């Protein structure tokens, strides 16, 4: 009982985190100007962002962490037509494209996934980042429903698997469309994709 009470208090404090100290939010609101479709609303944090912004970059309480992970998983939208794989050639373009949703970008252009910023994919592309693991030969996992579901949900919202993951929530935040996500799926899983040809 004692333990439960305590964890409830901690939970409350954690969820109130953003209100308890809004100095960073206030400073950004005072320091930024809306421009070319990028408004000050971008500064507002959702629950996940607020929970993942303390200087350890992780929430302290494992229970809160698990709650957020589960709620992220529950909100994953599977492909409406049940088809998970698109065209790896289009996926290749999306993976290489680093633009989208910056105020310097043309809002009429499609957003990129910028996968190469952090991951190795096609080994012929030498300019890859190392913030995330290499995904070369990702397709070795096959195309079972479990692999399709895992990969899709990871792309949709990586925090459904790893609390406070640094990977953008491409589906959850609408960075990529359903079709674009399918194309990235194909880039990762299609045996003909250059990611899997080596």
């Amino acid at each position, binding site marked *: 009982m004692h333990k439960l009470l305590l964890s409830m208090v901690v939970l409350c404090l954690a969820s109130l985190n953003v209100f308890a100290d809004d100095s960073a939010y206030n400073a*950004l609101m005072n*320091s*930024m100007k809306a421009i070319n479709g990028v408004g000050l609303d971008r500064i507002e944090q959702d629950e996940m962002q607020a929970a993942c912004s303390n200087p350890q970059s992780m929430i302290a309480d494992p229970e809160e962490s698990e709650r957020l992970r589960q709620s992220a998983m529950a909100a994953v939208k599977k492909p409406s037509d049940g088809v998970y794989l698109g065209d790896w050639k289009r996926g290749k373009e999306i993976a290489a494209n680093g633009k989208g949703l910056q105020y310097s970008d043309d809002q009429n252009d499609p957003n990129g996934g910028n996968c190469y910023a952090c991951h190795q994919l096609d080994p012929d592309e030498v300019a890859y980042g190392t913030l995330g693991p290499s995904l070369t030969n990702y397709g070795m996992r096959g195309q079972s429903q479990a692999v399709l579901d895992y990969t899709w949900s990871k792309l949709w919202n990586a925090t459904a698997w790893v609390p406070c993951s640094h990977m953008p929530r491409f589906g959850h935040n609408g960075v990529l469309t359903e079709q674009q996500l399918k194309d990235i799926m194909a880039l990762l899983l299609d045996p003909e994709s250059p990611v899997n040809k080596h």
Partner: protein
Amino acid sequence: MKKLIATILVGSVLSVGVIADDWDDDNPAIFFSEDGADMWLEPQGPNEVSLEECDLGLGAGVVEGAYAQLPRYFEDTGKVMDLEARLVHCMVTLQGRDADEITAHPYSLSGETGTEIEALSTWIAEQSLDMPIQPPQDHDAEKAAYTLGEKLFYYRAGTHDFGCSTCHRQSNTRIRLQELANLTTADGAGAAYGSYPAYRVTQGVVRSMGWRMRDCARQQRLPEMQLGSEASVALQVYMAVNADGAPMTAPTMKR
């Protein structure tokens, strides 16, 4: 008229390159630095005075070493200011110029070859070359700026959930082919903070640390970070204090 002739003489000597045989690298920042040195001395604004009486923190007119001890708290404004905010302050108070006019277009846009803020920053930073980065942490406002800077560093927001920490709290990682500085360490923060202003070969101009803050925010999918703003200055304090006495290397040349 006499003044004008003197300016022309000084200008032409600098531009012909008679003194131009003493440089060691390919860094075009030298041109920006020369411009900055001229601009510091050039009478401007309704008051027709130069910036020579501007106090960058070490006393009126002291430029040598000033950059390495910024950002810092200034009594006259009651604020912690970075170099760019301080320059704007001096342009307004000494020269009588309009702050909005200066801050409306502080950094070169595509096809432009330099702005006043870029040139002045280059020259002023160069006057701190090899000096330890040591912004004061004495005043409460300076300590508060560091604390705020740390919170901002970890603040995640926007469509991509990015914070500064997304890329800059680990060592030995790259984005594409670029090495990322770990800004939580003295080595990483020192190397990164001390290297700006930097001539960016991809852009053909020198970029200041204020621009760097603006551009990081852009890439984080956030709105436009304003020159000398509370958040921009606090993030610079966070980096400069973390640098912990590492030497200034600016102006450098970067991708």
